[in-house]
């Protein structure tokens, strides 16, 4: 079982991201489940979504309390929500920011995690470049695929193109690819250092 929790704000695509991740896993022959927590839908309000991936059928329907991977779509949530609750010491962390994790004040937390399991990705900037809109969810999925290896990049981009035919899908798929490369480059630098 590999459990992912995504924290975002209404409108950033946290729910869609979890769904796409589950489709990517399903297409690889795995079992997967995606679901959001729900409020009265409001743009900008904190949103949480979950995805479970397993080689066995998934029966449980409880929220993910102890994620194997955490995606933070909006760093301003750090001041509002306990996004790191339950993250395992060997868990993965993807944060959308063009700053460094130190600059976000996360140095202490990052110390407790495995260095090659943590990455900062300027997903909003990447989305602006490839999509023309500040929607970080597709690049963050690409980053998650690169960091965890749970699903392949091509499964992610297939799921994106399948859900969003035409230009929108292409732009998102390219953004996911760019973020995937960004993470691989960051990780190479880390191992070289």
């Amino acid at each position: 079982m590999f459990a992912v929790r995504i924290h975002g704000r209404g409108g950033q695509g946290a729910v869609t991201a979890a769904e796409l991740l589950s489709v990517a896993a399903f297409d690889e022959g795995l079992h997967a489940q995606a679901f959001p927590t729900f409020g009265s839908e409001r743009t900008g309000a904190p949103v949480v979504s979950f995805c479970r991936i397993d080689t066995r059928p998934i029966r449980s329907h409880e929220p993910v309390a102890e994620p194997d991977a955490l995606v933070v779509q909006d760093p301003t949530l750090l001041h509002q929500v306990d996004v790191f609750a339950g993250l395992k010491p060997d868990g993965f962390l993807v944060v959308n920011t063009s700053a460094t994790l130190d600059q976000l004040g996360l140095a202490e937390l990052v110390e407790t995690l495995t260095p090659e399991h943590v990455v900062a990705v300027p997903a909003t900037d990447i989305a602006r470049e490839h999509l023309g809109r500040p929607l970080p969810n597709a690049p963050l999925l690409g980053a998650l695929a690169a960091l965890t290896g749970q699903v392949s990049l091509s499964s992610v981009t297939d799921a994106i193109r399948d859900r969003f035919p035409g230009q929108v899908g292409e732009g998102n798929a390219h953004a996911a690819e760019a973020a995937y490369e960004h993470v691989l480059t960051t990780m190479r630098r880390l191992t070289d250092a």
Partner: protein
Amino acid sequence: MRSQVEGSQAVARAVTLCRPQVVAAYPISPQTHIVESLSDRVRTGELADCEYLLVESEFGAMSACIGASAAGVRSYTATSSQGLLFMAEALFNASGLGLPVVMTVANRAIGAPINIWNDHSDTMAMRDCGWVQLFAESNQRAVDLHLQAFRLAESLSVPVMVCMDGFVLTHAVEEVDLPTQDEVDAFLPRFLPQQQLDPEEPVTIGAMVGPEAFTEVKYLMHAKQLAALDEIPVIAAEFRSRFGRDSGGLVRPYRLEDAETVVVALGSVLGTIEDVVDEMRELGVAIGALGITCFRPWPAAEVRDALHRAARVVVVERAFAVGAGGIVGQNVRDATRGLPLVVHDVVAGLGGRAVTRASLHRLLEDVVADRLDPARLHFLDLDIALVERELTRARGGRRPGPHAESMLREIGTVASGAYD
């Protein structure tokens, strides 16, 4: 074909495959995605020969279904929560008239306080309205139950509701095996109404019945519901032979063979409960679970048979009778009358509170160690300190004001959030 799809879309597809001729609905969360999808399928022609009626209310939706069903066409609607209550009067009419309407209920709490999240208060409030009530524990079962619901409804001329947990299932993207149109057509024959309003052969449906025959009409309603207890397993067996899946039926035993402790539940919480049962079995605890798929009619004999070897039964239910206790628990106690076992009533998962494995472990460890008082209604994960603070506060003034809002202030939640 297997696909990774949202529960609501899977159900909308399943209903489409059942070829309803009238869909009348009024949108309410969390049912909305189902009826939006059906309306779209009618528009595109995927659901052919069907009239979609966007009515002015849930009362209108059920009334339109009653009219359409009486005119002899296959009729469907879906609702949730207050929407189901707004239908209440019409629900009794559909069952009293014996009209085979099928309805999905995306289970949601009943206000006040207003709450859009999942529990079973809505369908439990309507448990005695004369409808068959089937509960789905996964989206696969929700799809399968809809096929069986139309078959059951039309073979006995009774209305059937398929209950699925709102959001937890309706908005979950899971793997679902959707049948083909040919498979569904072979399983579900064309609707042959047992009664029909026809201008060529005029009849009256729904006449006034006085004391001379009202009891007898009601007796027949009861007899027909009991007949469903025989029909449901037959339909489930045919479903299994055609689709290769165990789905439907009255109850679903899980690892009961030598179980001293048995957890009884309905709906999506069963998956989590089965995981907990497996984990406790690993530790050597003789525990099992009993899923209630058919809550109305109440399969008393099957429940008794499944529980007769147990020493302790824990009923975990997402609703309760305020001032009385458990609802499913009362029925279980009735079914097991005279057996040497203890029944615990546990209210869990109200208004969207997650029922977690951790909480279930704590609960069941208490039960197995006989630390839980069976004479009292138990509330899982109740924040008793919050309740006590509020009671203390409310005793302080002449006009203490509303509880709900002051408790929200106490825990520091401004607007309600399901995850904080």
